[in-house]
């Protein structure tokens, strides 16, 4: 065997070793921080594994905006996002093979029990934010182009407020960190209900605004056209929208928090 052949063999061996962890059987799922922080995947993924023992799912928990950007670059096979406008653009640009609704929950505005800005009892989220902006209270924003951040910006736009100043705390972190910060600073923030409930015990925050139809938070699964594991991506999208997984989603949180965190709505809109 010539030295060049030895070298090639060594390279091949190295790649073989490396691909044990990142081989074709791995599905890269770019998801939102809310699904990770709430613990949903911990409940779902074991079931997926039982159904598809050949596949392993690697979850990259980032904001919806980043999740879609990862997918655009081909760094993710399948996306679970909750940023309808960004998703629309993504699909329109031809990056996605398919987009299917999976579940929804709702956003809530949480804040200190004392509710210094007195938003409790208001009818809609936009006016609640306007009230917060005009009071001396602080508001913690994701500030990271995530689905939650996108939703928040929609409300500011509706309220006609350009959020700026020391009361508006842009943190650039995931929803879990934002909730911890809001609790520490006794500030308001917009959060998905699931994450809030899962962290409620550690937080000095209470739900002050809920029920506005605009607060609905729809999650969709998108199979990425440039996926390196397209079969896996399709399998995952099929599985999570099928009745078995939908049932698991519907039951998630019942035991721990006494209420449903995500309402499955695959096949419906």
């Amino acid at each position, binding site marked *: 065997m010539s030295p060049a052949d030895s070298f090639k063999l060594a390279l091949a061996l190295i790649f073989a070793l490396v691909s044990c962890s990142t081989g074709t059987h791995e599905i890269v799922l770019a998801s939102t921080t809310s699904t990770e922080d709430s613990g949903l995947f911990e409940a779902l993924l074991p079931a997926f594994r039982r159904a598809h023992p050949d596949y392993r799912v690697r979850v990259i928990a980032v904001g919806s905006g980043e999740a879609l950007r990862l997918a655009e670059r081909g760094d993710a096979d399948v996306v679970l996002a909750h940023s309808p406008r960004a998703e629309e653009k993504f699909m329109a640009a031809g990056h996605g093979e398919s987009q299917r609704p999976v579940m929804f929950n709702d956003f809530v505005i949480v804040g200190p029990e004392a509710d210094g800005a007195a938003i409790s009892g208001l009818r809609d989220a936009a006016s609640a934010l306007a009230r917060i902006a005009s009071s001396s209270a602080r508001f913690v924003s994701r500030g990271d182009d995530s689905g939650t951040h996108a939703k928040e910006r929609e409300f500011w736009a509706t309220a006609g407020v350009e959020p700026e100043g020391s009361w508006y*705390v842009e943190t650039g972190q995931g929803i879990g960190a934002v909730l911890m910060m809001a609790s520490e600073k006794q500030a308001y923030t917009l959060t998905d209900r699931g994450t809030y409930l899962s962290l409620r015990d550690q937080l000095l925050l209470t739900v002050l605004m809920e029920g506005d139809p605009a607060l609905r938070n729809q999650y969709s699964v998108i199979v990425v056209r440039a996926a390196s594991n397209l079969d896996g991506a399709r399998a995952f999208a099929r599985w999570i929208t099928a009745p078995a997984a939908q049932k698991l989603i519907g039951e998630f949180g019942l035991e721990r928090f006494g209420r449903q965190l995500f309402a499955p709505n695959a096949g419906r809109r």
Partner: protein
Amino acid sequence: MDVLLEGLREALGLLLSGDPYVWQIIARSLQVSGGAVILGLLVGIPLGTWLGLARFPGRGLAVALVNTGLALPPVVVGLFVYVLLSRQGPLGGLGWLYTPSAMIAAQFVLAAPYVAAITLAAVGSVPPELRLQARALGASRWQALLLHLREARLSLMAAVAAGFGAVISEVGAVMMVGGNVRGETRVMTTAIMLETRRGRFATAMALGLILLAFAFAANAFITRVQQAQPRRRRPLTS
């Protein structure tokens, strides 16, 4: 490749045009890490000097602890400082969490062992007879000690550079206790993380270039100091 070149071009543009977002972050980084290093010097130099010169039982353990401090994982420091400063923590009343003060506190914990460890080594590299000679010329213990530190000053400056280099490029602790709040606790490292995630590579690269420049300057300085160490005369016997 295009992304990289394009990003670099835009990054230089941002820096040269004095982009306020970028420069404000750089200023905050310098304020936080500089403050932490100054506090680190105030604690690390006396501690390192003491450990370097005093002889007492348990000194070996103390030195080992200081050297372990060099390897303190920033996230662990972040965790402890977070718990201390959080509302339910013992120092929650300070209201420091998510402020630059908290970041300085965390980076101080990271910088102080660097300063102490390098001071310890620097002080030990000066022959103890130098202090004795100073005292033999009428200097008080304090004057002799200052002279000893003055002899080690190049190495002590290296301690500053090493401490600064260690904390300015640290991300775990400042992210945890600072929260990466725009305009307040966003520093170069946390901003680079965020901007990369948001796909704003130019901004991230602009900050990355500055960060590299700082790290390079600190290390270049340390290297120069190490090469400039003058030859020492043989230590005294008898």
